[in-house]
């Protein structure tokens, strides 16, 4: 036997498992560092809650890893530092969302009254309180523009997705790259494009339709890529059995594949809507904005919720800014609820109810989704 003598083996590393080691000790260290830092801040000219928190954090990382180093050695100590830092980064990502939503709620809540939905800014003077006047014209504009954009972009996006999944030609490869490129177009460039084409060259003037076209340029790639992912999840067996039974390709796609992916395709559309509903930049040069109701999307400048909020906030008058915050609140609620709706569990992928006999692996993929 060529076994190494037992004495030559290093001690196996200890793994911290017990509650005392994993929870109590770090908490104790954190508390000690926090109090110590508070004392230091009280004595020295250092000040500020943020500074205290940061110093406490750094002190904690150093002491905690030193504690690890003392008992377990350098490898575990390094691992410990990495764990703390990575966990902090992971949890940090939630902070901005909470801060933003809370702040918009606190600023906008008292501005969202009945009149916000039923009145316009047509007869509002600079001296009127924030409760007078509303965003009815902007809400109408947003509904019309987003609706038109959806009508324009969804069929195009879905057919593009069908082409991407069902054909293996060169066009499909090129298109996939271009859809990605298109999803990176800055929203303001989409607005400039429609402005130069529709407003300037075709002399159509500012209108809700122009805004809808600019928005659909932004919506198309989102719909196409999401729909492509969803159609890919449809089990291949369905496609093959349909073709084997003699159905032509178009019937297979329209009657078998798309219905199987139906809920996912709805998701793709709603995701697209949630992406464009809050866009402001392209509207500046297409819808242009107005203070009165214009229900005709084909002609004349129109307002929209994001545009309304943007133009109010740019104003120096506090009541106008308050109206802008109310608009922002309605907008964020609208966008986030649309987005949540689209991503709700079960709202994505192949609906398992219709195709229960699929092999288990595919079923699991369909439910989970990316």
């Amino acid at each position, binding site marked *: 036997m060529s076994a190494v003598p037992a004495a030559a083996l290093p001690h196996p590393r200890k793994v911290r498992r017990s509650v005392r080691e994993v929870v109590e000790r770090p908490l104790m260290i954190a508390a000690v560092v926090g109090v110590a830092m508070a004392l230091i801040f009280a004595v020295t000219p250092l000040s500020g809650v943020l500074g205290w928190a940061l110093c406490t954090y750094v002190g904690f990382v150093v002491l905690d890893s030193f504690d690890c180093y003392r008992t377990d050695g350098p490898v575990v100590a390094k691992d410990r530092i990495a764990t703390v830092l990575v966990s*902090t980064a*992971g949890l940090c990502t939630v902070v901005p969302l909470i801060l933003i939503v809370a702040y918009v709620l606190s600023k906008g809540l008292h501005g969202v009254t009945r009149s916000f939905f039923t009145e316009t800014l047509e007869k509002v003077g600079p001296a009127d309180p924030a409760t007078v006047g509303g965003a009815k014209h902007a809400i109408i504009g947003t509904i019309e523009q987003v609706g038109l954009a959806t009508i324009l972009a969804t069929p195009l996006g879905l057919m593009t997705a069908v082409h991407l999944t069902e054909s293996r030609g060169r066009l499909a490869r090129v298109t996939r790259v271009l859809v990605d490129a298109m999803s990176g177009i800055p929203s*303001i460039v989409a607005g400039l494009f429609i402005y130069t084409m529709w407003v300037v060259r075709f002399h159509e003037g500012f209108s809700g339709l122009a805004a809808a076209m600019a928005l659909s340029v932004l919506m198309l790639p989102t719909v196409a890529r999401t729909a492509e992912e969803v159609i890919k999840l449809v089990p291949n067996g369905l496609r093959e059995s349909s073709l084997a039974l003699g159905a032509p390709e178009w019937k297979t796609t329209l009657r078998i594949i798309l219905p199987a992916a139906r809920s996912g395709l709805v998701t793709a559309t709603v995701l697209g809507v949630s992406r464009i509903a809050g866009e402001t930049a392209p509207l500046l040069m297409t819808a242009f904005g107005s203070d009165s109701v214009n229900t005709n999307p084909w002609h004349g400048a129109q307002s929209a919720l994001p545009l309304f909020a943007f133009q109010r906030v740019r104003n120096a008058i506090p009541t106008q800014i308050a109206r802008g915050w109310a608009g*922002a609140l309605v907008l*964020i609620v609208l966008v986030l609820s649309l987005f949540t709706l689209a991503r709700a569990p079960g709202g994505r992928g192949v609906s398992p109810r219709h195709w229960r006999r699929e092999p288990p692996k595919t079923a699991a993929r369909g439910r989970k989704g990316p």
Partner: protein
Amino acid sequence: MSDLDLLVEPARPLPEPRQITPGLTTGDKVFRFVAAAAAASVLLILGLVALFLVLEAQPALKVAGFKFFTTFEWNPDGTPAHFGIAALIYGTAMIACIALVVALPIAVGSALFVNEYAPARLGRPLVALLDLLAAVPSLIYGMWGLYYLQPHLQGTSRWLTDHLGFIPFFHTSRPVFGSSMFIAGIVVGLMVLPIVASVTREVLAQAPRGVCEAALALGGSRWGMIRSVILPFGRSGIVGAAMLGLGRALGETIAIALILAFNFRITTQILAPGGGSVAGLIANNFGEAGDAQRHALVAAGLALFVITLIVNTVARIIVNRTSKGKMED
């Protein structure tokens, strides 16, 4: 044998076999054509964007000539008109870099946390919340940055310039903070964080599991495994994700238009008010612009379009190569 013969019905003449024409039916041809046309429309739209921007930018480009890329001023309505995007491009790039400095470490950290550390019970809601952050409109980031973040970062800015002022970036000539590239950069960083994080997460999840487990089995700690397997594997993917974030950051408009105080100087003082941004300038000036100014703004938009297109395409190529290339253990 004869029993079987009894069971079999007497042979009837077989029906004529159905004529099968190889190839596609007419319906299929139409269908394929429609789908291909939809796909080609993407190409068409991109082409039209370039075409119309070039057409409309031409008058301005003729006036400015090559100086369009080297001039630091923006005065297209003056006589003589004097304008160029040099300072704007610099400001745009500066803000995008600050954004990446903010976003990249958090994004990589959160990707590692969700993939390697967090239990699924915690990881999945985190991913959902991060996606939700991506859905918040640019306008709201801008308003939040202007009214909430800016006052709260006053102290930080002052501290940075007082204690780290020897670094050129943190030096300020006057103790005025706000409307600066620093604040705009942080807000844009939060805006691009979700996309950088989600692309990084997907790339790092492709790391060969077998090798990861081998590293752990050899006695490596979790951090050792990450450093020796996952990060080397995902390096180019992280670069791609960062470039994708850069592409988004370059095109951010409304938030920057709200926060930044525009001037047309090139300065390293990121904490002081002032700076430039192509997209932000377009949004700010478009409403009141006359004809000459609008042509100039479209020209600036064209430059932005070309830059973001290049950055995004290169980024996508890098990301796709990482996620497809090294699948095998």
